[in-house]
């Protein structure tokens, strides 16, 4: 078996006395979509926040291309081409699309001043690829629709050559048409060889988009299965019962 693009090994974190993530190992191969499933509070988002540098793990290791890396901040994660699209979208509502897209990584002129014109031009280029209908570049993102905001968040991840993409409920706030658009985009990014972690509550959507699914409950990993080997009912029982029916059988 080839080396995973990214591997999280034996990760634990606790808040006070509660083990939010308890000895969990997951990995993703290039061009693969791995789904993370579980109830609210199962530890999916916490696990993913360790990977994106928002939380610091208490134990465990992270490997990129088989090499051990340290991720202590969002900046570290970005340095390893790990990009995250958060459930809450993490946009500054008062800024326009280009300012959000480049937030923390602004293009500057030779005098060190931010170059809004260049950033807007780059934003237009990437948006033409992701969401050709998007035209509202000079308005604060608060006035955009859910789908438009989502395309800004995705553009931000894609623009900076993400190799590993984390998507936390990317379609939760979207309509039918916009959800389909995001699904197409995930397939395209996968074809380009990105490794994608996808968090969602929608089991059917996960069966459609993912290659493998990892199920968590109460901070522990119940199991990781290839989607073609399991039924939707198997996954549901893993989520609800916290038991892997395949292993029990």
């Amino acid at each position, binding site marked *: 078996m080839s080396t995973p693009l990214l591997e999280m090994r034996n990760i634990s974190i606790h808040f006070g006395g509660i083990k939010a993530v308890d000895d969990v190992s997951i990995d993703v191969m290039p061009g693969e979509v791995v789904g993370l499933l579980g109830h609210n509070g199962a530890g999916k988002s916490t696990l993913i926040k360790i990977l994106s540098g928002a939380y610091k793990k208490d134990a465990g290791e992270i490997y990129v291309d088989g090499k051990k890396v340290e991720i202590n901040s969002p900046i570290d994660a970005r340095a390893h081409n790990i990009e995250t699209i958060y459930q809450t*979208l993490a946009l500054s*509502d008062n*800024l326009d699309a280009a300012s959000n897209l480049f937030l923390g*990584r602004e293009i500057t002129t030779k005098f060190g001043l931010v170059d809004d014109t260049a950033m807007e*031009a780059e934003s237009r280029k990437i948006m033409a690829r992701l969401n050709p209908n998007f035209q509202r570049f000079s308005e604060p993102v608060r006035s955009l629709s859910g789908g438009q905001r989502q395309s800004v968040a995705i553009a931000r991840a894609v623009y900076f050559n993400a190799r590993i993409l984390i998507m936390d409920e990317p379609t939760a706030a979207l309509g039918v048409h916009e959800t389909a658009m995001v699904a197409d985009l995930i397939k395209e990014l996968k074809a380009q060889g990105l490794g994608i972690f996808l968090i969602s509550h929608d089991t059917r959507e996960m069966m459609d988009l993912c290659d493998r699914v990892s199920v968590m409950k109460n901070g522990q990993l119940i199991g990781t299965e290839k989607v073609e080997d399991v039924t939707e009912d198997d996954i549901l029982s893993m989520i609800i019962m916290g038991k892997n029916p395949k292993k029990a059988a």
Partner: protein
Amino acid sequence: MSGGLGNLIKTLQIDTRLLGMIGAFIVISLVFHVATGGTFLTPRNLFTLTLQTASVAVMATGMVFVIVTRNIDLSIGSLLGIVGMLMGVIQVQILPDIVGFGSPSIWIITVTIGILLGAAIGAFQGWLIGYLVIPSFIVTLGGLLIWRGGAWWVSKGTTISPLDPNFVMLGGASGTIGVTASWALAIVGSVLTILFLINTRRKHVSHNFAVKPLWAEYALGAILVSAICGITAVLNAYLVPTRILERRFAAEGLEMPEGYTEAYGFPISVLIVLFVTIAMTIVAKKTRFGRYIFAMGGNPDAAELSGINTRMLTVKVFALMGALTAIAAVIASARLGSAGSSLGELDELRVIAAAVIGGTALAGGVGTIYGAILGALIMQALVSGMGMVGVDSPLQNMIVGGVLIIAVWIDIIYRRKTGDA
């Protein structure tokens, strides 16, 4: 907005809020002009108005950043007091013994120490807020009491005067640059404005962005250049009173020529305000620091997840507020020619009011530097106008308080209408 005027404003891409504030200033001025029997809109009064506005205006630009990051600074009036007091002690009681009385280095050393001191105190308060996560309201409320007490403690309630003659020039009342230099400055300012407009348009065209029609660019340029020249003309029209000129000639043993006149031109303190306004606007719009301030105000979590160190940013914002407060302390004490321990009392409220009237939203994320400057000017116009008409001081405060509340209410309606939350 509807009809031709609305389209015109849209084509010119002028902020309607800016127009509203200029409109409010003009209305206030005209009302007082009539009520005072024609003395409000005179070069002399407008000159005095700019002098009185200067120190609050400088601090208001810093307050925009503080409020945009969802904080508040109640300590600035007291900070102004203690920094002004310490600068007074340094220039009157310490430096003359070291560098010699009347040495031109006195004001430079004094101002440098003052600004460093202001920035250090601001940074310390910012550290308490950013790193120890004590609410800014509490930290700066404590600062309000502590620094005012400190100012009394340093001076033991006395007033330090007279201040260094070079230092006093910075207050503007006795430090103006004269007619020729004022016009030279106006020409440089106009040329830079036009170059800026041309450069912006060229950049937009090179990226195939939509641009305004050419006539709109010309119109905008003409408006800005006439504004610059208009202000210069007004300040240049205020003549130095004849008896002051006579006294000056007499002091040099000369006879004043018949019909000799001289005008004041730009006061140095107003030049400081102009410089601070331009610098702070560039910081707000064109630097990463400024961009992060607004990003943090819009969504602190998003800013943090984008790799922005919001704690350090808080320290920097308060340090900048402290440095600007020190500059305001220079202007305020220099204008009076003395440093008293009540210097700057209640200034925090004037400054917050100026920023808020200027469109800075207390919820964070929204605010402009030019808005705060105009807000300060509107407040000062109200106060001086009422003083000239003979409104009692308690009634003045009541009216200013009412205006503040109404201004914010209008602002809320405006935002709701434009969807600019």
